[in-house]
């Protein structure tokens, strides 16, 4: 590693070569304001807010786009820089409507924050706005071009991190908008609804569809029996909305908050993550041992990934696990198994899922298989961000709540279920159970370090009693291409498949950094949330899905065995080629 020595406001800093001045300043606890820059993305240097001075030089540098240099001496704050930055903010505001009170980012907007910090009290420049309607065509996110400050983050995210190219800058100058090709509605574009654009947008130009009111109406409807599930990734991120450090596990408080919100039963998607492992693990072992079914088997629990595959790699459909996502499995057993057991009419059950994900809002109606119970298996999806607002609006003092437990019979989980929320977690959980299915014994050490980590694509070999299983993990949608091309090539040339089992999650880091999670997600935050899930795993009484007593119970009482006819009807699905552009 090459170390560079430089000065920030006279303070010496040692930093890795290749870092930018923003990072160097951070090292000595100086925050340089930055609006277009996001640490996930290459610097675009569009806004000019991050200007700094080089000592003894008249030059102004953009801190986000300037790499550190030996002996560089930088001034980050003085009266002149203050004035420049204030002017930049005022100029951005001259193209931005003053509608904070009704904005999806009220209270979390980065522009609003800077306007407040710099004490902007008037708009000295003539205001010129883009006059275009909101795009509400998807069930997941809303685009509001009038709010766009043209920072470029969403376009970079959608193209570079996700490889989808749904969004592009269309037009030029002050008439530029971010939009799908040919100004199509987003829902007719290749968009996979991952919501990463909404998670990266600094302002209210892209935000999740808010459905908190639907929830409030449901819980106050005496005819509805509201049942809720929470996803693995929610428990290590929701706390951030209440100023807890990223990665703090708040599962018990979430259960308690849900009961205060008036829901009838509190279940956990982690239970169904275990159920998914039983089905998907058995499916994998069956493909490996009977030679029937395409190898590698590819995970299917991420709806954005499924959507991407159906559009861009439909020839991989046979490789997809037919297992539904944990959320959809949970919905299906809620309105069948639970309904029967509790003696509740499934028509009265209103099934809600709290998810880190905007694509989950799309998944619940992606096709008819999502009504396996005869009803919509999941009626409503709220993202972590919506859930946080709901808790606040309901006057619940979240941090003071006493931890509670989930309800039976579909609320208990093994450690395997909880790590579904991070990259490599589904793989690790599946391997723990596959080992047992193949050998009849449990792994001596269930921590499978080989599949953990943050590299975009990871591969390794896992030894199951002499059987060498080649596995690979990809996250961040744009990273999946190389892996799939490798598989395609082997397949088309009749060679042995390079892998047996592949895990894919659309979001960098996995669902812990999903498009519906609290804002300001960076790799540092990702690492903290992932650490939180592994801690939750380690603390669990059982670490493997097949050891979860409620899982054993549901198979004994209801499903029979994995891949049984009943399991197929409720827990499995099919895939269809979709057009990249609808029209």
């Amino acid at each position, binding site marked *: 590693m090459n170390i560079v020595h430089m000065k920030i406001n006279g303070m010496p800093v040692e930093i890795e070569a290749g870092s930018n001045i923003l990072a160097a300043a951070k090292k000595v606890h100086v925050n340089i304001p930055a609006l277009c820059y996001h640490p996930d993305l290459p610097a675009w240097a569009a806004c000019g807010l991050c200007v700094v001075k080089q000592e003894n030089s008249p030059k102004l540098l953009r801190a986000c786009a300037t790499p550190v240099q030996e002996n560089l001496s930088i001034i980050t704050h003085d009266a002149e820089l203050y004035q420049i930055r204030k002017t930049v903010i005022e100029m951005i505001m001259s193209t931005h409507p003053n509608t904070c009170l009704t904005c999806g980012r009220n209270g979390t907007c980065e522009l609003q924050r800077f306007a407040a910090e710099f004490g902007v009290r008037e708009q000295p420049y003539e205001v010129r706005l883009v006059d275009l309607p909101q795009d509400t065509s998807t069930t997941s996110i809303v685009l509001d071009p009038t709010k766009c400050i043209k920072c470029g983050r969403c376009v970079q995210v959608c*193209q570079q991190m996700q490889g989808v*190219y*749904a*969004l*592009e*800058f*269309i*037009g*030029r100058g002050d008439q530029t908008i971010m939009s*799908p*090709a*040919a100004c199509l509605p987003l829902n007719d*574009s*290749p968009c996979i609804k991952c919501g990463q654009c909404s998670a990266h947008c600094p302002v209210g130009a892209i935000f999740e569809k808010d459905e908190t009111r639907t929830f409030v109406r449901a819980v106050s409807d005496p005819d509805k029996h509201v049942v809720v599930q929470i996803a693995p990734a929610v428990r290590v991120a929701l706390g951030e909305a209440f100023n807890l450090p990223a990665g703090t596990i708040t599962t018990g408080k979430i259960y308690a908050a849900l009961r205060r919100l008036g829901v009838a039963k509190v279940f956990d998607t982690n239970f169904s993550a275990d159920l998914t492992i039983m089905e998907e693990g058995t499916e994998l072992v069956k493909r490996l041992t009977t030679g029937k079914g395409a190898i590698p088997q590819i995970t299917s629990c991420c709806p954005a990934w499924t959507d991407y595959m159906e559009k861009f790699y439909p020839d991989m459909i046979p490789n997809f696990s037919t297992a539904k996502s944990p959320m959809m499995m949970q919905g299906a057993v809620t309105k069948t198994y639970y309904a029967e057991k509790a003696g509740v009419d499934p028509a009265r059950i209103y099934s809600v899922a709290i998810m880190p994900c905007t694509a989950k809002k799309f998944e619940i109606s992606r096709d008819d298989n999502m009504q396996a119970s005869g009803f919509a298996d999941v009626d409503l999806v709220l993202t972590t961000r919506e859930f946080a607002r709901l808790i606040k609006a309901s006057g619940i003092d979240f941090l003071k709540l006493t931890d509670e437990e989930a309800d039976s019979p579909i609320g208990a989980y093994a450690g395997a279920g909880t790590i579904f929320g991070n990259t490599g977690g589904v793989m690790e959980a599946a391997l723990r159970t596959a080992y047992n299915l193949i050998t009849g014994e449990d792994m001596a050490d269930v921590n499978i370090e080989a599949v953990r980590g943050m590299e975009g694509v990871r591969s390794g070999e896992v030894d199951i009693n002499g059987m060498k299983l080649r596995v690979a993990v990809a996250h961040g949608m744009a990273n999946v291409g190389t892996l799939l091309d490798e598989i395609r090539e082997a397949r088309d040339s009749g060679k042995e498949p390079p892998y047996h089992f592949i895990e894919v999650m659309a979001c960098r880091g996995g669902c812990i950094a999903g498009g519906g999670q609290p804002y300001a997600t960076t790799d540092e935050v990702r690492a903290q949330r992932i650490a939180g899930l592994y801690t939750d795993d380690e603390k669990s009484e059982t670490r493997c899905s097949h050891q979860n007593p409620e899982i054993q119970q549901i198979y004994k009482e209801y499903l029979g065995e994995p891949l049984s006819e009943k399991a197929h009807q409720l827990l499995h699905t099919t895939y269809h080629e979709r057009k990249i*552009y609808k029209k």
Partner: protein
Amino acid sequence: MSIMKEENIFSKELIAFIEEWKEKPGNLIMVLHRVQEEFGFISRESADKVALMLDMPLATIYGVLSFYHFFKMVKPGEHNIQICLGTACYLKGGDALVDELTNLLGIELGGVTEDGKFSLEGVRCVGCCGLAPVISIGGEVFGKVTKDQLPGIISKYN
């Protein structure tokens, strides 16, 4: 419908041109330029085809198409009316001609009348400032045009 189809058939020469430019950097602008030369505009279908042939996202193509005023995304009318918006014409009332024409035809600059007869385009100086303000219809130039003459000029093409 059948006319639409014919319009979007890429000629052998066009296909050969795209194949030739496929591997060269900066190919997109060249290719789009050539497509517009062939059809007079770049339809959604043409853009789709270029995307496929160059193995490039459609969004990237529209990013470029919309960046340059040169590219037209709607089929020009049978008679394309170009209004010079160069400095001289502008000073001599070119903008009043724009107002009057949008009024008469019921379309904005860049638009096409519903029957496909006329389209309206603002252009940079056409090089006959002495005749300002100038409009040109399908290559025929009209100089020192006044608002009142416009209905007459248009009726010639109706």
